[in-house]
């Protein structure tokens, strides 16, 4: 199959992109890495009037760290996230997860912002951003606004982005020194979307915990019951027992609801046990 015929325009700056969208109207789409959009167009799942190529907006690419936070530009490619020394040192959760995003050739073009903006419920980066409490920086006709991850992911392919708004970057506070993290997913094959996945952040002395599952619901979801249990000092078995309490779990082609619940609980048990062992060894 081939795409429909569309107009193709390039933006060099963020204001440029917003202006081009305003001119083209709601049937326009921003083209970032194209690793999800082009696949959808090739199958005519979407037939835009105009593609606004934002890949040349240099200001949106790159990772910068200051004393408190790390900012990942929306157009930073998955491969650049994987190779980033800042990410490896400061946000090891993302470093561990990025190798599970698709395959090398797709990581060479797919972008961090595209993945977050698309909000595939099975995607790793949205789950990491939620577990790390990231804040989305969004540019629109009326200026820039900020939306925390907890209020950003609204459903399958659904986010707080209004039509025409551009995600420009994600800012993540540096985790407190001594924070522990975990990442695990079950996939049929390296690079496939997960059947169930987990991102875990635990603050020193269990002062705080964020447990996020992906690919078990319509969006990356926080496991509030498990978080409370971790903070209360519950055992690994006790936390795993409440892994998906209060979460609306969806089945898909890979696994039904009961299996997804089981996978989620197993992933959490394994990662918590691994962290306990690590702590005991230290």
């Amino acid at each position, binding site marked *: *199959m081939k795409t429909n*015929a*569309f*107009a*193709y325009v390039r933006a060099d700056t963020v204001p440029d992109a917003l202006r081009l969208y305003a001119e083209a109207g709601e049937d326009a789409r921003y083209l970032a890495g*194209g*690793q999800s959009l082009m696949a959808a167009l090739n199958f005519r799942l979407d037939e835009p009037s*105009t593609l606004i190529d934002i890949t040349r907006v240099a200001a949106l690419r790159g990772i910068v760290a200051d004393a408190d936070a790390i900012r990942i530009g929306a157009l930073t490619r998955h491969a650049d996230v994987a190779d980033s020394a800042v990410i490896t040192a400061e946000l090891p959760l993302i470093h561990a997860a990025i190798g599970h995003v698709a395959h090398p*050739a797709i990581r060479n*073009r797919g972008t961090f912002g595209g993945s977050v903006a698309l909000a595939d419920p099975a995607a790793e980066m949205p789950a990491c951003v939620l577990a790390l409490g990231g804040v989305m920086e969004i540019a629109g006709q009326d200026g820039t606004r900020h939306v925390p991850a907890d209020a950003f992911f609204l459903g399958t392919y659904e986010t707080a982005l209004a039509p025409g708004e551009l995600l420009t970057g994600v800012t993540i506070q540096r985790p407190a020194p001594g924070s522990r993290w975990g990442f695990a997913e079950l996939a049929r094959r390296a690079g496939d979307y997960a059947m169930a996945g987990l991102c875990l952040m635990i603050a020193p002395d269990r002062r705080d915990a964020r447990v996020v599952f992906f690919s078990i619901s319509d969006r990356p979801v926080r496991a509030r019951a498990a978080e409370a249990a971790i903070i209360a000092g519950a055992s690994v078995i006790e936390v795993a027992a409440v892994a998906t309490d209060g979460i609306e779990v969806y089945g898909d082609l890979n696994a039904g609801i009961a299996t997804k619940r089981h996978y989620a609980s197993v992933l959490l048990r394994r990662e918590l046990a691994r962290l306990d062992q690590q702590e005991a060894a230290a």
Partner: protein
Amino acid sequence: MTGTITISLHLNGEAVTATLPARMSLVDFLRETMGLTGAHVGCAHGVCGACTVRVDGAAVRGCLMLAAQADGATVDTIEGLTDTGAIADLQDAFHRHNAVQCGYCSPGMLITAADLLDRATLPDRAEIRDHISGNYCRCTGYQAIVDAISEVATARTKGAA
């Protein structure tokens, strides 16, 4: 705004300028406009890897990139890499190990493998399998492909030492 665009790129070492429909994918441009039929179209949605080519030195999916986006880029296909001899050792190893049967996957597989071999460290079999996980081969069962890549990786590392 029109539905066509004029692009200039460096294709297999030569400057090329072409006017083409904006919606044309890079792999269709290479195959249909430029007659470079090494890269194949298996799935058109990024899953099979048969369309893999190099853009600015990095392996990418030719089906998930517009030709329009290659404006100003350096594009190398299996034809170009064959002509320069850059992957002759890899092609020879694929041949000797019987890692090519119908050949549909081979151009993409070779470009993906070359990408791994360009990194400094010696990959083990698990890393090789992980790296080629996005390239389907429906004939060989992969074993021979991993053998071939592994052999070249070892030989190149020795050569460099």
